């Protein structure tokens, strides 16, 4: 079938061109970032004393950089590097996306432009990072006294909120449990659609894979805090809003973890069941499901553990649980009571961690 071979060749060409474009894009991003970091350092050091004698803040310095020009320059330089790669060596983007050509692998990094670029890039990142986050070691080492009353409160917990704290702690644990439990069925169903090894067969399944993966990545990228705000206006302040917020985030996270364990199964039983003439659902039930039950249980317990931690923050905005009474105490500066609540959370998280580790050890 010559037609098949032609299709294969053209798809190969297509993939190679895609890889070239990706390498070019990676180069442009790296070179652009490099240029911006240099400009940032120049701006900060040249403006060290402004007219008022004040230092420029990192936000101001970042605000005056020439992003558009740098991007344009970076694209041109990326093109040039890839064009003249046979003289100056492979570009970092090429090394990342397609790997370095055979003849360049033996060359020591100190003898390549790419090597020097990488080293300088890492150093620049650290220096600019230091200035962008305004690292201030003197304050860190000399001004502890300003925080001493908070620390004092934390280590002298007050008993005033102990009862209420314990009650809400129970709510927190159940909130996390319900969010996890509700997330299992949808995540279980979606995990098969989001596993690469099960979605190669036809166009529809490949499309489904991309759709589910993209949707889940997007959902996971949105903080649970934001989901909490959405659900608080939807169902009102209280633990149920917290359950829903953690539920959405858990579906996305569990789908990812589940589908990765589907991807790492032994393909042997799947082959064997397929060979009996079984249908898709039967292949999943016999070839896939028995292999993924232990990792699924382990990931689910791990997720419950994470949800307990997250529900504290969810409570801050009104999603129920212990976080709900923590926020006003922080605002009022009741550090003793804050200390009690923080201690309760810490002990619970520590216990959950311990128990879930034990159970996971048992299962796997």
């Amino acid at each position: 079938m010559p037609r098949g071979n032609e299709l294969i060749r053209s798809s190969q060409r297509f993939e190679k061109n895609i890889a070239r474009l990706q390498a070019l894009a990676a180069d442009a991003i790296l070179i652009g970032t490099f240029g911006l970091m240099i400009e940032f350092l120049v701006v900060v050091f040249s403006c060290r004393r402004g007219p008022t004698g004040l230092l420029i803040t990192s936000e101001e310095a970042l605000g005056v950089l020439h992003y558009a020009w740098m991007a344009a320059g970076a694209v041109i330089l990326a093109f040039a590097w890839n064009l003249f790669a046979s003289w100056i060596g492979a570009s970092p983007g090429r090394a990342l996306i397609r790997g370095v050509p055979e003849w360049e692998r033996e060359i020591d990094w100190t003898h390549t432009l790419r090597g020097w670029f990488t080293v300088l890039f890492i150093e620049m990142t650290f220096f600019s990072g230091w200035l962008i986050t305004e690292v201030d070691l003197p304050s860190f080492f000399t001004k502890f006294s300003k925080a001493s009353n908070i620390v004092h409160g934390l280590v002298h917990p007050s008993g005033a909120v102990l009862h209420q704290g314990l009650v809400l702690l129970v709510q927190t644990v159940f909130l996390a449990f319900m969010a996890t439990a509700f997330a299992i069925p949808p995540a279980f169903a979606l995990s098969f659609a989001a596993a690469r090894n099960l979605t190669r067969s036809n166009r529809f399944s490949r499309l489904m894979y991309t759709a589910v993966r993209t949707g889940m990545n997007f959902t996971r990228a949105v903080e649970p805090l934001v989901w909490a705000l959405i659900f608080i206006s939807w169902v009102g302040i209280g633990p149920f809003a917290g359950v829903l917020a953690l539920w959405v985030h858990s579906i996305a996270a569990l789908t990812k973890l589940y589908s990765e364990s589907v991807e790492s199964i032994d393909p042997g039983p799947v082959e064997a069941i397929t060979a009996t003439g079984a249908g898709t659902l039967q292949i999943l039930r016999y070839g896939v499901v028995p292999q993924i039950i232990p990792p699924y249980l382990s990931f689910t317990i791990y997720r419950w553990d994470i949800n307990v931690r997250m529900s504290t923050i969810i409570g801050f905005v009104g999603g129920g649980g212990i976080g709900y009474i923590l926020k006003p105490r922080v605002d009022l500066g009741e550090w003793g009571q804050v200390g009690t609540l923080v201690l309760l959370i810490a002990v619970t998280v520590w216990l959950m961690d311990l128990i879930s580790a034990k159970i996971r050890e048992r299962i796997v």
Partner: protein
Amino acid sequence: MSEGLAIRIEGLGKVFDGRIRALSGIDLEVREREFLVVLGLSGSGKSTLLRCINRLIDPTEGRIWIFGEEITAAKGAQLRRLRRQIAMIFQQFNIVRRHSAVTNVLSGTLGRASLLPSLFLKFPQSEQERAVAALERVGLGGRERHRADTLSGGQQQRVAIARALLQEPKLILADEPVASLDPALRHSVMRHIEALNKDEGLTVVCSLHDVDLVRRYATRVVALRDGHLVWQGRPHDLNRDTYKEIYGTEAEPATNATI
């Protein structure tokens, strides 16, 4: 299509990922009740050939007929119906490790089982009785409820043979069925496959490494080298020269003793 032909292969070729050629220009006919052994080095295309026959791998060139029906053109329900006639035995056994021996054997009936009960691991009483009998036949009576991963390698492969038996196939594909077993256990597994061939009248296509086994069980031999069919003949026609042709001169010293 002539009567009595189990498999007919015409111009079969397979290219993986558009780059790696595993098979080219294979023409082969297998008659019913034959015990055909496929010889060849690892990577010569034996596994790919077997998997093309039941479409676990889709060929890129050529056509294959199973008992006169073209499997390379089959889709969906028709493909599953054709696969039901072809049981497969694997080098790594490929049984479901967390299921019991009897559930593994019953999974051979999935091609004809009704969907919903099978998803809950439920099978008709008659099938269950047949599964127990099949396990007894391969010498695993009384181990029905043992979890598959508690069984030894030889026992696991016999569970796989019982599974193939319950599939009620007309054709058996065996991909290096004894390569991961102790040499001492090889005959016990091969004898069960031989019984399927002789007593049940099933056609067997089996890839093997060991020339002793080939001589003992095969009725006909074909050899693959770099994806090409390089030799075919009777098992007793295998001699030093044909062996060199199949395996190349470099492989000779290691296997000298068996020739």
